[in-house]
């Protein structure tokens, strides 16, 4: 019986077009994904690396939930729907046989369908090198085992699990609807898992609960180096194994339950009752019924009543959508996502940010937008086909209502739906904020964003769905075509790398809302694009109105026959008007984007860089003068986003030969900022050549600058940001929160570090591969040049800055004068001592918090925090950090060199903090709106401030040379210093969590590396090395050799190099030398392995038991088995060697956790000792006095270890 049903099911399925359609879609999808080489982070890992293949199959299994619900949800429901059940179940079929047969048949079908994607991937990756959509060398050999692994461990188990789930739900509830709700549920579990995963503490929980195994897989693969990614199959152990067994196990249990619960009678039950109830009315016959006369009535047919019908119909349809349980299902899914996205919000170092209004608004672009698209497609289909769906169309279409009123009513229904969708964001946003105890609702922000900027966008998206549905005129096919159209419209340009917004349906420049700058200058560009697309949408809508299907005969012939019949000329006028608006707005946009701004596609930009490098590379290192004195007169007009800056620079030829050629490279293009005055000692040099694409100019000096000779250079630059670009924030000058730096003036020489960096791209273009941007440490010219600017060594600095009357303008140095003139506010700054020619000009409507720190040299340092008026929650953190940092650095390193320290906020168009001389601009999103209420969260505002303040020493006292590795002197040292200040403030217990993020960033960074990983001594480009590895290594080093000892070395380093005005400037060789000098011989191996090489540990606690002991040296004997390995890597990520010499590694035994003074959970060591261990297994016996709870190796994760969680395990009784 089972076999018969199974065979029938399979035969039925394999003749169904839907089965082949799903298969075909997956095949195509897989092929496109593969041939494009999408989804690999490092250029050095193959596009078809084992990890990528498994990842893709897993991802497909997530979206495959939709197919699983379609395939597995219907087999039993089909019998109800087609009314087959009335006789089918009268056949001699056993319930279990029926159910299992249907189940097995559908499941086999589902698994067969899923092979489409496997096949698609294999074809795509095989053809990839021939198609050349991606560089051929990105594709590795086809490894069948990867596909077998991915399919059997992830794809199929996931589909079996989700499919079984859907099958059972429908069989138990006889409602297809629940299978839909079920698929939403999976997405939610997945989403929740994903959101939890952003907090590293939850890693292992997430690996367990994610139904698709994606996070578990990522947990074991995320730190693999590119060569490892090519071949790695995650072993089925630990969390991954449990996860892979857990969910299919749940499915099996559910299937068994269903098998025993299922009864034909119950399955048929519901409907029979309904029918009975309906028939009862038949017996109610009024004998006198025929006698009632039909009264005469007045009929009116005019525009007014038609418009009324239109509104009435829209309202009726809208209400019926609201009552639709499927709509309720989708919208609650959408709202759940909106809520969760907003609830978890954004985190930095695991610390949540406040649920500001703009955060709530941005959540609509996360997952919600997909629901919006789904709703638009499906409900447009519903609305367009409503009468036809219930077969009322023959009646309604013959009613005396003009088509425009019907069409208008349907359209308005969807307008109402879009209105509902935007309004939901508002309601959910406010709800979310309230639940999180945040009451600073910005209703104006909600209104502007949702109704003025977002609603038009949804309307535009809707117009396309409407157009497709009307033209296709078949609901199901319409859905498919509409989704297909969206996919084409959104994904094809991405594949073709088209990013010109005017060509991308419904798209517009990205914008950000900021507390400081509000909607800033974005409303104009977004609105123009909205007008442009709305006009386009209007054309679509009028066209679809003209082709509106009415009656029973909607062959294209008949539709053309009707075209214009009931409309006349009006639509033509409408289309003409819409086209006119489209053209006009298009012209305005084009004028802004491509005429007043320069639009360069990615490919064009690469071409330009290639051409520039080929022509001008010869000028790299070309002798140019150095600035010795800088005096600025900067007039900011934030109201108009303009600036006029005059710079008086004293320049000097510090070289050995005369200079008669000046190479000028501009940071801004000519359309933004022009240089209107350029003189040397009052004489304008002659322009010899101008490279437009690269804003590079060559000037000739009639009177060459002899060696040692000085001259006065004057530059006036003016311009600003009037027109909006295709993309980009143009954040330099904004209404409130201007942030300019020295690049407002052009620089000298060939821009070092310019050009294409990708190895693949360089190879393709015949450029030699450049391993390093900077010369080696012993390069004389490199040592004579400063890393943060080759145009000058140390300079004197004065600046006069004017700005809007309600703003404060800030530049480095002591404020010497402040006054108002001609309605502008002026500030004069003069820096005490010399600085690098590396400065910022900032201006905003600030409130100021001031405090004083007494410097170790006896002078007062004025600490000022310039902040947005509502951003006062975390000021004490910034201030406390500034003070603690100044104190720690002065105590351990050297005195602070300035009389003031300014921390200032700038809008969130970028997320970073930067340290200029005595000035630290700090992005709005980076601390000011952080939510630090939970003391267990990382106080990154404190740590980052400490980092930036540390740069006053590491970067500004010691200015690194322009040689390989020198940036470690700035960044690694600042990171180290900030860790020490944070440790001093929050205690050792707080460091673990922060270091975990450092470790995670480092390991992720190296696994995505596209060139090769560099070392702390020669790294010139890799941020994950200089911040993350640097921080980890220095933290461990301070622990191993002692903080004071290490700091003494750094103090000596400062002694030799601080504020050194003349070359040679500091290199990593100098830095490393001072570190070596304070490190005992026994630990030199650690320096070598950490600074000059790449070394990772694999430490693991294997077992730990304790036994009470009568022996004298402790109450408990703990026997700990550990395993330690050390691997050194090539930069490429290949394993180089496994050193066998012993290393000093900490062993610890701990009691129950305690809390420290700050209320943080703290490990309580009963025994802690560093031991020399050779790689391999060790059994260590120690004695402790209190009952041990945990024990392990390197328990504080001081060493770099890809699996940090297995270092510590519970101690059990022997």
């Amino acid at each position: 019986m089972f076999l018969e049903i199974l065979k029938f099911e399979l035969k039925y399925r394999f003749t169904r077009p839907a089965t082949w359609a799903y298969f075909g879609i997956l095949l195509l999808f897989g092929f496109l994904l593969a041939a494009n080489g999408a989804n690999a982070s490092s250029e050095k890992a193959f596009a078809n690396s084992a990890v990528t293949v498994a990842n893709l199959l897993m991802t497909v299994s997530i979206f495959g939930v939709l197919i699983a619900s379609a395939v597995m949800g219907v087999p039993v429901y089909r019998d109800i729907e087609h009314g087959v059940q009335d006789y089918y179940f009268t056949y001699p079929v056993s319930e279990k046989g029926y159910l299992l047969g249907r189940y097995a048949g559908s499941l086999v079908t589902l698994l067969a369908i899923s092979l489409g994607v496997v096949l698609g991937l294999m074809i795509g990756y095989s053809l990839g090198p021939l198609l050349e959509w991606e560089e051929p060398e990105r594709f590795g050999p086809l490894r069948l085992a990867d596909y077998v692994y991915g399919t059997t461990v992830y794809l199929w188990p996931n589909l079996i699990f989700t499919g079984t789930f859907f099958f059972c739900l429908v069989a138990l509830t006889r409602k297809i609807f629940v299978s839909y709700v079920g698929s939403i549920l999976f997405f939610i579990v997945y989403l929740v898992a994903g959101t939890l995963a952003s907090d590293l503490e939850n890693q292992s929980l997430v690996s367990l609960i994610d139904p698709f195994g994606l996070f578990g897989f990522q947990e074991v693969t995320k730190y693999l180096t590119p060569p490892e990614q090519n071949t790695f199959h995650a072993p089925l152990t630990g969390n991954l194994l449990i996860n892979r067994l857990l969910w299919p196990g749940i499915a099996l249990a559910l299937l068994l339950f269903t098998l025993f619960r299922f009864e034909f009678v119950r399955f048929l039950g519901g409907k029979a009752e309904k029918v009975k109830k309906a028939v009862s009315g038949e017996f109610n016959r009024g004998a006198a019924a025929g006698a009632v006369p039909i009264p005469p009535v007045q009929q009116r047919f005019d525009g007014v009543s038609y418009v009324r019908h239109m509104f009435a119909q829209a309202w009726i349809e809208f209400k019926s959508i609201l009552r639709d349980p499927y709509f309720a299902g989708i919208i609650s899914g959408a709202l759940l996502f909106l809520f969760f996205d907003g609830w978890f919000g954004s985190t930095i170092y695991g610390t949540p940010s406040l649920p500001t209004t703009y955060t709530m608004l941005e959540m609509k672009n996360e997952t919600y937008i997909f629901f919006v698209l789904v709703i638009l497609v499906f409900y447009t289909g519903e609305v367009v086909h409503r009468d036809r769906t219930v077969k009322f169309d023959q009646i309604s279409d013959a009613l005396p209502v003009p088509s425009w009123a019907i069409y208008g009513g349907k359209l308005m229904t969807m307008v109402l739906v879009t209105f509902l969708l935007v309004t939901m964001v508002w309601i959910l946003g406010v709800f979310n904020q309230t639940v999180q105890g945040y009451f600073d609702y910005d209703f104006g922000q909600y209104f502007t964003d949702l109704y003025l900027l977002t609603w038009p966008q949804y309307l535009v998206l809707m117009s396309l769905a409407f157009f497709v549905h009307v033209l296709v005129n078949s609901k199901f096919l319409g859905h498919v075509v509409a989704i297909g159209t969206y996919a084409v419209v959104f994904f094809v340009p991405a594949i073709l790398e088209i990013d010109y917004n005017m060509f991308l349906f419904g798209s517009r420049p990205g914008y950000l809302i900021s507390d400081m700058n509000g909607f800033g200058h974005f409303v104009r560009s977004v609105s123009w694009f909205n007008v442009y697309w709305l006009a386009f949408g209007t054309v679509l809508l009028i066209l679809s109105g003209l082709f509106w299907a009415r009656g029973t005969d909607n062959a294209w012939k008949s539709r053309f026959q009707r075209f214009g019949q009931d409309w006349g000329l009006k639509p033509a006028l409408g289309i003409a008007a819409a086209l006119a608006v489209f053209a006009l707005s298009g012209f305005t946009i084009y004028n802004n984007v491509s005429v007043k701004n320069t639009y360069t596609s990615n490919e064009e930009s690469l071409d330009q860089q290639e051409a520039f490098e080929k022509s001008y590379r010869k000028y790299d290192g070309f002798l140019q003068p150095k600035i010795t004195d800088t005096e600025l007169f900067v007039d900011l007009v934030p109201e108009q986003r303009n600036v006029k800056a005059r710079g008086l620079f004293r320049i000097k030829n510090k070289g050995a030969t005369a200079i008669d050629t000046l190479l000028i490279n501009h940071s801004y293009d000519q359309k933004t900022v022009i240089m209107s005055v350029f003189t040397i000692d009052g004489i304008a040099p002659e322009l010899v050549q101008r490279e437009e694409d690269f804003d590079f100019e060559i000037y000739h000096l009639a009177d060459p600058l002899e060696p040692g000779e000085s001259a006065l250079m004057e530059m006036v630059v003016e311009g600003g940001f009037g027109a909006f670009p295709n993309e980009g924030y143009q954040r330099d000058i904004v209404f409130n929160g201007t942030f300019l730096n020295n690049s407002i003036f052009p620089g000298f020489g060939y821009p070092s570090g310019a050009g294409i960096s990708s190895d693949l791209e360089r190879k393709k273009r015949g450029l030699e591969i450049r391993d390093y941007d900077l010369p080696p440490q012993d390069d004389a010219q490199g040592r004579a040049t400063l890393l943060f600017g080759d145009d000058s060594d140390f300079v004197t600095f004065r600046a006069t800055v004017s700005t809007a009357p309600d703003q404060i303008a800030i530049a480095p140095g002591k404020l010497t004068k402040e006054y108002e003139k001609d309605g502008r506010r002026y500030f004069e700054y003069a820096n005490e001592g010399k600085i690098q020619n590396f400065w910022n000009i900032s201006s905003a409507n600030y409130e100021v918090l001031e405090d004083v720190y007494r410097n170790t040299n006896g002078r007062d340092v004025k600490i000022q925090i310039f902040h947005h008026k509502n951003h006062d929650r975390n000021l004490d953190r910034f201030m406390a950090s500034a003070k603690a940092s100044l104190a720690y650095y002065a105590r351990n390193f050297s005195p602070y060199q300035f009389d003031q320290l300014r921390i200032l906020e700038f809008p969130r168009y970028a997320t970073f903090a930067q340290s200029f001389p005595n000035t630290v601009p700090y992005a709005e999103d980076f601390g000011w709106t952080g939510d630090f209420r939970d003391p267990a969260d990382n106080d990154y505002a404190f740590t980052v401030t400490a980092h930036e303040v540390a740069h006053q020493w590491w970067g500004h006292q010691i200015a690194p040379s322009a040689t390989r590795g020198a940036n470690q002197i700035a960044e690694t040292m600042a990171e180290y210093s900030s860790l020490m200040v944070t440790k001093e403030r929050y205690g050792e217990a707080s460091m673990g969590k922060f270091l975990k993020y450092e470790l995670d960033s480092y390991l992720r960074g190296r696994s995505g590396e596209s060139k090769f990983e560099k070392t702390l001594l020669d790294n010139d480009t890799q941020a994950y090395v200089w911040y993350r590895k640097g921080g980890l290594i220095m933290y461990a080093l301070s622990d191993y050799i002692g903080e004071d000892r290490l700091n003494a070395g750094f103090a000596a380093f400062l002694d030799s190099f601080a504020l050194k005005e003349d070359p040679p400037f500091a290199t990593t060789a100098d830095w490393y030398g001072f570190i070596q000098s304070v490190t005992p011989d026994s630990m030199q191996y650690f320096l070598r392995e950490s600074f000059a090489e790449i070394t990772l540990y694999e430490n693991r606690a294997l077992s730990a038991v304790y036994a009470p002991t009568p022996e004298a040296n402790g109450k408990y004997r703990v026997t700990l088995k550990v395993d330690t390995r050390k691997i050194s890597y090539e930069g490429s990520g290949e394993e180089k060697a496994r050193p066998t010499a012993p290393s000093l590694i900490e062993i610890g035994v701990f009691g129950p956790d305690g809390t420290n003074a700050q209320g943080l959970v703290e490990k309580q060591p009963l025994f802690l000792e560093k031991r020399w261990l050779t790689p391999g297994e060790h059994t260590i016996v120690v004695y402790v006095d209190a009952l041990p709870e945990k024990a392990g190796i390197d328990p504080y994760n001081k060493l770099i270890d890809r699996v940090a969680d297995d270092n510590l395990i519970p101690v059990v009784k022997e």
Partner: protein
Amino acid sequence: MELRIEHLNKTYGNGVKAINDCNLTIPRGMFGLLGPNGAGKSSLMRTIATLQEADSGSITLGDIDVLKDKDAVRRILGYLPQEFGVYPKVSAENMLDHVASLKGINQRAERKELVAALLHRVNLYDKRKSNLGTFSGGMKQRFGIAQALLGNPQLIIVDEPTAGLDPTERNRFHNLLSEIGENTIVILSTHIVEDVTNLCNDMAIICLGQVIAKGHPAELVREVNGSIWSKSIHKAELPAHLEAHRVISTQLKGGKTEIHVFSESQPDASFHAVNADLEDVYFTRIGERMELELV
């Protein structure tokens, strides 16, 4: 006012010629449209009801060009399609009220009165608050009749209106229809010949998209009267009779097969004359056009 159809043609995309040079004039009163399945009745009615286009030819209703000025037709049209559905979650009363408003009855009170009256006339008044989704087939059909009669229609087209009605309701409907048919054009499409006999002053038979007979039912019957002969035969004898005579219909009666034969004179003594009825007309005319499957 009369409805005039001239040289109307319609061929569907799949090549089926649904209406083939159809000419028909339909005066006020009840007009019956007879024809076998697939004859083109529904196509013709849908074309008149503005639901589909014609390839050529014209339809005029008084001064109205039906093919062009659809709105004008819809204002005076009452249409009951052969198959239709309803909104399951809406009550009969609300739905009728909504349709009435779409038919231009703007006064709420008028609408209410009219809807109530019609609900009484189709005997759904007691069920007016029930959702349409709970209606049985017959009740749904009565609802369909009620909506077609909303708003003083001058042209009423009803396609198989009595399908699914029990005898009582069918009678009730016939009464209602003939009452209305006194001063409007009512086109009744059916294959129940008896209905046409009882109700219609005028009728047409359509086959393969063409009008093959038209006139007063009695008139049409008179034309064949005297040419219809009947004989009771054994089933096995049928092929021989089909061979020898123009058999227009067969019917089982008391275990034997009764055949009707069209012939100017008595074929042989075994046949006896019958009083022709409309059914004989129908079968005679249809048989002239197409092979009837009589076996």
